[in-house]
């Protein structure tokens, strides 16, 4: 299904976009640069979620936990241990992947809503720990002023770092999804029974997908710390998890780039409507309701449908 996306036109368009992103800091005000950087962080998080929800068909309702674990891992590693900082940067996503493995192992035995619920309860457990363990995690205040390497100081440097890591991560996600593993994952989403029958260990595939998604959520968590320099328990709260689900919906499930569009829409809406009125969640709620009614395939899904009215445009999920 990704064959259509790699043709020359879109590849050069992507290269052009990347070039524009690279020169942005030279004429963009700090505010917009910060906004774009936070969009990239959220987009990576939403894409990692889409790997399991859109392509894996799992009810990953508390994906924010892995993002929070990644962020807290790097914050704690830097402030509490004497490890060199670059090691902390590498270890933190693995901590998130480990959390994904443990939570995934418990959840994967169940299906659909039960899967979602046990994940939410495990995630809430971690949230409550971070919220209350003042000595270790800073409690509801979180940890602020996390020291970062000099090379990442200033919005320009952190913007470039985030852009590079984001680009590498989505390339990795792209190859994972178009690999035999990714194809099998989608096959298991569409018909798990048939997959089992031809000898695919569906649960193990899905667990592996959760671990990969958690890893990239952890990467997004690290990027968040690079951008903000602080962590707080809201990163692990279920509201964030639902928000990223909505980003996937806004952009379009079952499309590769959808979550990026969704994250960009949501964060820009938040900052621009938030400047005008304090009732931005009301407006977001209305937009969301309208989308559910009129554009259930998401913005990007809709565009793909219009541009390429063939069957490969949007992979329909069997009901």
């Amino acid at each position: 299904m990704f064959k259509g996306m790699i043709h020359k036109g879109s590849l050069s368009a992507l290269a052009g976009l990347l070039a524009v992103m690279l020169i942005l800091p030279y004429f963009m005000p700090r505010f917009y640069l910060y906004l774009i950087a936070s969009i990239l962080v959220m987009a990576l998080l939403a894409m990692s979620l889409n790997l399991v929800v859109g392509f894996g068909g799992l009810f990953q309702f508390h994906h924010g936990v892995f993002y929070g674990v990644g962020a807290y891992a790097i914050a704690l590693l830097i402030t509490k241990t004497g490890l060199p900082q670059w090691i902390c940067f590498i270890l933190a996503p693995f901590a998130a992947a480990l959390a994904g493995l443990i939570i995934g192992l418990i959840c994967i035995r169940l299906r659909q809503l039960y899967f979602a619920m046990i994940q939410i309860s495990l995630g809430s457990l971690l949230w409550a720990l971070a919220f209350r363990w003042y000595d270790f995690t800073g409690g509801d205040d979180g940890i602020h002023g996390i020291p970062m390497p000099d090379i990442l100081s200033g919005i320009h440097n952190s913007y470039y770092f985030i852009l590079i890591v984001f680009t590498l991560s989505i390339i990795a996600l792209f190859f994972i999804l178009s690999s035999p593993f990714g194809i099998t994952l989608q096959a298991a989403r569409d018909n798990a029974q048939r997959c089992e029958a031809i000898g695919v260990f569906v649960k193990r595939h899905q667990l592996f997908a959760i671990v990969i998604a958690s890893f990239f959520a952890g990467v997004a968590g690290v990027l968040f710390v690079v951008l903000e320099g602080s962590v707080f328990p809201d990163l692990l709260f279920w509201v964030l998890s639902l928000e990223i689900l909505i980003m996937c919906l806004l952009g379009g499930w079952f499309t590769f780039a959808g979550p990026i569009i969704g994250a960009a829409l949501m964060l820009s809406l938040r900052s621009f409507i938030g400047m005008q009125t304090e009732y931005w969640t009301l407006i977001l709620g209305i937009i969301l309701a309208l989308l559910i009614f009129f554009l259930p395939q998401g913005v990007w899904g809709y565009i793909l449908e219009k541009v390429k009215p063939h069957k490969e445009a949007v992979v329909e999920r069997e009901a």
Partner: protein
Amino acid sequence: MDTASAYGLSELAVQLLVGLSRSMILFIIAAGLSLILGVLRVPNVAHGSLYMIGAFAAFTVNTVVGGSLGFWLSLILAPLFVALVSFAAERALFCHLYEREHLMLLLFTFALMLILGDMVKLFWGVEYKSVTAPDILKGSVMILGQPFPTYNLFLLVIGPVVGFGLWLFVNKTRVGKISKAAAVDRMMVGALGINVSWVFCTAFVIGCFLAGLGGALVAPTMGLTLGMDHAIIMEAFLIVVIGGLGNIWGALVGALIFGITHSLGVMLLPQFAIIFPYVAVVIVLIFWPRGLLKSVW
């Protein structure tokens, strides 16, 4: 509240009773959620917001009418107002989505939560609100030589009453029986010539009424703030899940587990009290992944 050793047996018993009375509010809210989950099969994320609206509406009734009459009226009017809001939302929007995928329904209730949350901010403002209980429920009574708040005693009475009423509705009325049948096989119920859409509407409105009642009941026990919807909804969900989806008695069992483990946590490790119920939920779900009692689906 210092250390566990400072508690005698009677303190322990009273502390458990406090947990039990907190369970009753959780039970009322979770029972409503469970009814909606059982019949419509939708996790209603907006349930917490409806609970919040119930609490704020109770505040309004209390300030407009005043006195103990205001309190008793608020127990009726606030849930009715919530039921009206949910009826409007269901008939205008939600009922058109029943054929869609479940994830869409869930996200729609999330959209509803965002809208309702800001509506509360719009109508009631951001200030902290509080409701006082009527004189008859103020103060405390002595139980085992320990003071026990009278209002909690009232909650201990009203919880089983609501539970019994709900049981009567589900098992003894025609609508209740139909909604039970619709929970099991909605196609068949439709084939029998029953308007399933209206059955869903009834179940949804009754469930939301219970959320509003929970809000009205909780109002005198805590300060009303805008974040109270986020705090309650996850607890209510977990209660419903450990009890067994759609099972009203399961909601009771789950609420008891939640309330009692929380009050145990307050005694043993006050700092980590909120972790105890979550640990209990994880343990229950590891051993009984489908909940303690039989779920409807």
